[in-house]
Structure formats: structure tokens, C-alpha cells
């Protein structure tokens, strides 16, 4: 296979390559590759030849068009950890700025004040939403933030049992299990009604709104945790925080969240950003990057990475986490989103979700064959009991260009978890309801 000359991504010309090789004292590239075992050098690679940009564009457009999405006429009632929200133009506009997109991690603070100040804003927003004292600059996603919070509670309490509510999303517990597999920890499932917990529990980890959409009694559970020397961890939906009391108001110790609903596209699951906040006392046990304010030699305000001795590049095997490349850009999206929505907008979006979901729930509940499972106050997700396995209902809905709710029959008999956000029009809810009615009556 010969060297490709003059690809748009590779500026050196053949003549320049010769010149550079000569300057390095060799005649050809092979002279530089002496350390590579010769029998394994230049293997055959079975890949296509390169495409021009126009061909690339044709290829990806055809790939994209085979997926069912709002852009080709589907409406979706899926939630369960990833949510369809309207993303303001400001978010997309700022996200196009190459200075943010193509910058590196801000290890040179003088050359990265943009990234750093945004990260500081992101930490502020995380605190404001959650009602907590301190936050880091973001984790990979919600579930990894949750898992790291559980690990952090172990470090803080030096106890090795982690209590998680039975109503939490399995994606949260699965991630915790994968993160803790070889750390000698035990996962304890806890009922939301619990009034006492074993003394060796590091935390009670609560998802609220829980997997089924309902608000948990965070206040009571936090008291239970604290009275037993355990931490209280709450994993929230940040949109719900526009409406419901913040975990900070209940004295929670660590709060995590999936930041995706705050301006990040669903994008088949990633990249997202995990929010992570805690009480100030625990700050040195926090995982992840933290940005702090400081001053330059002339006394001007500036920002820099701080408390880096917690991190892997300094503390290596004793670091609070192995996380390195994180999700700064999604943090930017969250920051622009919250700055754009502002104090009123975050209320409005939460209220719209609430109103529409509750309308949908009440309309579905009126149907003959379907009912709503009452599990307490819910935000924008709720469980529908279907007359037949939800799989069958969803297949029928799909024929009508509707992506139905998530089949959760593994956790709730014939249960379908429906989510309704502000992007769904009444008209679309009515379409769903009448489709369900039709499907129900044709059984």
C-alpha cells in the first residue's frame, strides 16, 4: 500500500516529506521505524479507500434517513434516562465556536480562560439547581456520576455496603456494579418505605423522580440515612428541579444527575454529562475535575483547575477516580441552556412537562383497557398498565409512526413507561391516546 499524497487533512507534500526525512538523517520512512518488528511492519489492512466530502455526505445522509426520528415524522414517548427537549438556538450557535470545540483540557489556564470560566459557571449552575454547596465540572454521564457518588460515600464513611432504593433505574445500579465489581463492596436494595437501615451502610442512594417517574420522600430517607451515619445520595432529573424542591433543601450529601435534558441532544445515548454536587466538607473526596477562581500576578481574576491532587495524573492509583477526558463541551451546552432559559424558563419548561404528562396520563387512564399505576406524585413520566405485553402495543403504535413508551414489563407487569415533554403537542398526545384506544379495542 503506498502513501497517499495530499489528503485534505494532511498538508505535507511529497517534497516536504523528503526534506524532513533528510533533515532527520534518513532516506525513507523505514529508517525511522527500526523498532517495529520487521515481520509485522506494514500489514495488510482491509478498509475501503477514502471518500471525498461529497460522497461522505451522501453516505451519512443515507444512514441517517434509515433511522426513525422526529425529523422524519415519528413522535416518541420514550424517556427513562434520555429526554427529548427543545434545544434553544443559542446552544447550537455557541456550540459551533471552534474556540470551545477544538480546545484541549485547560491545563494551561492562561490559554484557556474561556473554557475555565464556562466550567466555573457550570459548577455554579449545578449548585443552583441542586441546592448544593459545591460541584465538579462534570462526569461522563448520569449513571457514572451516580456510581462514583456511591464510591465516594464508601470513601467518606469507610463503610462498604451501598444501599440503593429498589425504585431506581437499573442503569444506575448496573453501572455502580460494573464500577465496584472488584472493590469488595456490597449492593443492598432498600425499599422506599424503610425506616431503619443497617449500621454498616455507606449511603442510601435515591433516584427521584424514580425510574417510574414518581417523587421519592427524600427528606425522610435522608433523615434515616443520617441517623445511621450514612450519607444520602440523590440522583435527580434536572428539569424536575425547575418545579420540585432541591435535594439541598433536604440536607442531602451528594447529588448527581444526568445533564442531558439541559440542552444536550439525545444522540442515541451519548455523549451526555453527569452533574455531581456535594456538601463542601466532602470536597476532597470528590471525583472529577474542579475549577477554582484565582488571580494573576496583576491581581486580575482568572480561573484554573484546582484540587488536582485528587486526580489520577497526580495521585495515580490512589486518585479519587480514574476520570481524565470528561465532558466539558456538554457542560458548555448545559451552561448556555440554563443561561438561556434563566430563572423563569426553567420553571416554565418543568411546568409544561408536568402539565402535558398529567394530561396524557389522565386521558390514557380514561381508556377502557389501559390504566395508570398510581405511585405517588409524578413529574413527566408515568407507568401505564397495558392489557397485553407492551411490546405488542408498541409494534402497533410504530405502524402509526409513534414510538411508544419503554416496555418495563420486567419491572411492572405489562408496564409501559411513558414520558411527555414540552416538545409534544396536545395534538400528538391525542394521537397517542386514540391510537391506544384503537389498539385496545381491537384486542
Amino acid at each position, binding site marked *: 500500500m503506498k502513501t497517499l499524497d495530499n489528503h485534505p487533512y494532511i498538508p505535507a507534500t511529497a517534497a516536504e516529506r523528503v526534506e524532513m526525512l533528510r533533515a532527520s538523517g534518513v532516506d525513507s520512512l523505514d529508517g525511522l521505524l527500526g523498532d517495529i518488528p520487521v515481520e509485522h511492519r506494514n500489514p495488510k489492512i482491509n478498509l475501503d479507500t477514502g471518500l471525498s466530502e461529497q460522497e461522505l455526505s451522501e453516505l451519512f445522509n443515507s444512514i441517517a434517513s434509515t433511522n426513525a426520528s422526529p*425529523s422524519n415524522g415519528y413522535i416518541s414517548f420514550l424517556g427513562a434516562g434520555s429526554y427529548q427537549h427543545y434545544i434553544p438556538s443559542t446552544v447550537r450557535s455557541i456550540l459551533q465556536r471552534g474556540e470551545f470545540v477544538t480546545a484541549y483540557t485547560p491545563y494551561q489556564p492562561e490559554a484557556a480562560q474561556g473554557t475555565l470560566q464556562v466550567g466555573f459557571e457550570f459548577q455554579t449552575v449545578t449548585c443552583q439547581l441542586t441546592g448544593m454547596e459545591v460541584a465538579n465540572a462534570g462526569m461522563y454521564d448520569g449513571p457514572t456520576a451516580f456510581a462514583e457518588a456511591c464510591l465516594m460515600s464508601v470513601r467518606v464513611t469507610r463503610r462498604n455496603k451501598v444501599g440503593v432504593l429498589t425504585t431506581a433505574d437499573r442503569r444506575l445500579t448496573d453501572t455502580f456494579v460494573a464500577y465496584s465489581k472488584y472493590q469488595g463492596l456490597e449492593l443492598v436494595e432498600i425499599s422506599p418505605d424503610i425506616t431503619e437501615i443497617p449500621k454498616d451502610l455507606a449511603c442510601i442512594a435515591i433516584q427521584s423522580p424514580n425510574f417510574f417517574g414518581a417523587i421519592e420522600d427524600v427528606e425522610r430517607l435522608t433523615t434515616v440515612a443520617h441517623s445511621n451515619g450514612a450519607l444520602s445520595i440523590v440522583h435527580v432529573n434536572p428539569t424536575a428541579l425547575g418545579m420540585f424542591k432541591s435535594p439541598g433543601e433536604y440536607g442531602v450529601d451528594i447529588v448527581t444527575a444526568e445533564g442531558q435534558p439541559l440542552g444536550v441532544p439525545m444522540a442515541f445515548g451519548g455523549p451526555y454529562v453527569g452533574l455531581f454536587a456535594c456538601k463542601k466538607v466532602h470536597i476532597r473526596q470528590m471525583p472529577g475535575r474542579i475549577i477554582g477562581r484565582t488571580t494573576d500576578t496583576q491581581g486580575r481574576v482568572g480561573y484554573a483547575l484546582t484540587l488536582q491532587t485528587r486526580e489520577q495524573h497526580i495521585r495515580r492509583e490512589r486518585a479519587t477516580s480514574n476520570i481524565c477526558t470528561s465532558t466539558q463541551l456538554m457542560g458548555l451546552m448545559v451552561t448556555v441552556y440554563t443561561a438561556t432559559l434563566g430563572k423563569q424558563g426553567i420553571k416554565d419548561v418543568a411546568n409544561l412537562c408536568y402539565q402535558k404528562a398529567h394530561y396524557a396520563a389522565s386521558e390514557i387512564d380514561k381508556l377502557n383497557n389501559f390504566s395508570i399505576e398510581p405511585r405517588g406524585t409524578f413529574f413527566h413520566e408515568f407507568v401505564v398498565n397495558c392489557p397485553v405485553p407492551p411490546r405488542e402495543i408498541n409494534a402497533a403504535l410504530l405502524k402509526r409512526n409513534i414510538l411508544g413508551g419503554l416496555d418495563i414489563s420486567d419491572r411492572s407487569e405489562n408496564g409501559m413507561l411513558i414520558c411527555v415533554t414540552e416538545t409534544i403537542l396536545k395534538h400528538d398526545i391525542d394521537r397517542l391516546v386514540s391510537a391506544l384506544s384503537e389498539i385496545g379495542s381491537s384486542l
Partner: protein
Amino acid sequence: MTITIDANEVDRRLLMDRSLAGRRAFTLPGSDVPEQSLPDSSLLREDVELPEISQLEVIRYFSVLSQLNFSIDTNFYPLGSCTMKYNPKINDELSSLPGLSDIHPLQPDETVQGAIRLMKDLQDDLGEITGLPGVSLAPLAGAQGEYAGLLVARAYHASRHDEKRTIAIVPDSAHGTNPASAAMAGLEVVTVRSDEQGNVDVENLRELVNEKTAVFMLTMPSTLGLFEPNILDITNIIHDAGGLVYADGANLNALLGLVKLGDLGVDICHSNLHKTFSTPHGGGGPGSGPVMVSSELAKFLPTPVAEQTDHGYVLSQPAMSVGSINGFHGSFSIVVRAFAYIKALGCEGLKSVSENAIIGANYIQSKLKDKYSIVADRYCMHETVLSAANQKKRGVSGLDIAKRLLDFGIHAPTMYFPLIVEEALMVEPTESESKETLDHFIAVMRQIDDEIDRSPELIFDAPHELPVKRLDEVAAVRKPVLRWSPEG
């Protein structure tokens, strides 16, 4: 009235400092459904203290802030181990296509055939490039790829009831994520020395290896930018002892089409799509760190793995999977970009990437090694680790030099890493920078060396031309201020 407004200053007030009650940057539609009753007011919140500013101010605030950054779009970034290459704009566009950016991760497989197929094709390409055909795109960054790989190694040993293997051998030159990931995986970290040539000290390795060795973690090429000449011996030593070889593939930019890790005896590796495969770094992520393993180990991979079946493409869980290491299926938008990159370059193009990366790094090394010493006088791969030890003797540190480089609009090299090199300045030009840019960098580096004797204050006080002068990072730690507060 005369106030003194400083002409030179960027307004650094935070969003909350600009907030004023009642202002809005956005409105939402009115509700189109009948009014629903609200929950018990004891559950409800008063206000969220978010900023209240206009839409113009949102745009202006972030636009102005962005200009305070260096970035690939505006600056040369010879940042070793980070592979700061051109991030093709078309890839950003393609990943934002409706149909790719607005699909839900839990949609039924049959409604996302294009997406899953794309994942499968990228898995195949990465398997082909590394010679390790079992691939999961789940890891969200390099460190998670490492962790996933180590979980695979542990699951493999467990499957053979070889539970005593709890040691990870890691070279002293390794990136911090290697030992940190090993610790997360419950492995004890044992360090193997480098010899004076920068290679793994094979004798030392032989001494360390035993029946408790779970895995040897090697960065290929190493963080010194060197290809391990004894690689075949090393992989044999580990395999003979029953251990597995993990290659940290963060530096894969040096190897595309030149050698396959699998051919060298590597069992597991990860690759940082945000390095070799050109997805933008975003100021610190998002990343994507697919893990590649030999076919024997494929059944242990984290979930999901994309597969082609008779009924189309599906996302599935490998038979003995180590489980789910994050929320959904990995950094899909990043995966899309990386796939576009591979498609744009193709077979020949990818090889050309590595060739040009290596040529450029050696060119810089050859032009600077008389001033900045190098570990051993041998050819490097895609990066060269220079030492400012000579300069240090003349009173100027690697840090000072790095800060001075910023004045010229050139990002600092990676500093003080690997830890084993005194005053290390790790320089990785990448194939996407022109020879002209390399020559400019060389000239600036030589000029800075010259300035040490002629005008050292230029270096000590650097940077001069940036929005802030040198920042007091110690103060930031001593009394951490981590968020806006009304008191300022």
C-alpha cells in the same frame, strides 16, 4: 463625574453578575392542554437562582469568552500524548444530522438500523486497524476504555478460576489513568522501570512477573514517543506467565497501517477516538474510548456490542459481559465523527496519517535536540520528549518555556510528563500541521532558548500577550472558590 474605565480589560463578570430580575433570553410556548392540578405545595420549589439576561447577552457573553481560548481552529497545539489534530468540520455536521442526533437510545433496534450498522462498521474498522477483532464502543473515554479492558482481563482470569491474579504491572512512564484504572479494577499496581533508552527494562519485568500477574499495561508507542523494540519478548514473557497484555492505545496515531497491536501479542487495547480519530476535544471532552480485544476475549466485552444478524443489526450483550459501564451505548456522536474520519481517509489515508505524524515529530526532534536534550539519541514515533534540563541549569524551567510559548500563539507542550524525564516537554505535532508551522515552532523554541541569556525576564514573566498573566494556582487550592456567590 469621572470614573476610570480600563480600555484594555475584558469584562469578566459572571452570568449572575449580569442578571437582572425580569429579563429573559427565551420564552416557552403556552400550555396547549387543559390545566392540571399541581402536587402538594410542600413538594414545590420557590425559584431556581438562574441568570436573567437577554438573548443578545447570552450570545455575546459566550462569544467573547470563547476568544479567550487557544484551540486547534486558531492555534498550533504541539501537546504530546494528546494528538491535537485537525477536527474536520464535516464530521461535526454529519453527527448533527437529524436521524443521528435526535434518536433515542432506547428505540427498538428495527427503528435505528442505520445507527447500529454504523456502530458495527466502526467496530469492524477498529478491529482491523488494531488486529483485535472484538470491539465494544461503550467506553466514554480512554480511562473508561482502560477500565473496561481491565475488567475483561479480570473476567477472563475468573472464567479460568485463576482468581489469584491481582497484580497489574505498569511502566513508570505510564499515564496516570493506567494505575488509577488498575486500582479501580481492584488490582495492585507494581511499577516496572524504564531503561536509559526509555524502553521497558526487560530484566526488571522478568523479575516482577509471576503467577499473580493479571495484566501488563503498556503504552504503545510509549509516552516517550518510543516504540518498544522488545515488544515481542515482552508479550511472550507475560503470556508465558499466564498474564494478559493491555496496550494503552492513546498513541495509536503513530501506528495506523504500520503495525497491528494484535500481531505483536497484545490481547486488549483501547483507542481514544478524540485523539487518533480526530474528534474534537471540546476543552476536556466528550471523548470515546472503544476497547478492542482478541476474539477469545470478545465474550467478556462490556455491553452493548453491535452485531449483524439475519434479522438486521442489533445491539447485544456479550455472553459473559463485564456489564454496563455507563448509561447507554457510548458516545454515539463521537463514534459518528470517528467513523466519518476513517471513511474520509480510507486505508491509504490512515497510513499516511501515521507516516506524516512520525516524519514531523522526528523533524522537530532533529532540529531541536542540539538545544533541548532528548532521552536517548534514537528516532521517535509521533512525538518527541524534549528535556529542558539544559535550560533549567541556566535558570529557566520547562514551565517558564511553556508559558513563553503561549506568547507566540503556540500552545505549550505537555509538561513534566512522563515523570521519568527531567523538565519534560513532550511535543506531538501531528500530521495535520504543515511543515511551515513546524519550522515556525522550531524557530520560536530556538529563540526562547536564546532569550534565556539575552532577556530572561521575557520568559519569567510570560505569558505577556494573553488575557491574564500567570495565574496563582496555589491560592486556588488553598482557599477554593468553586462557584459564583452573591458576595463575589
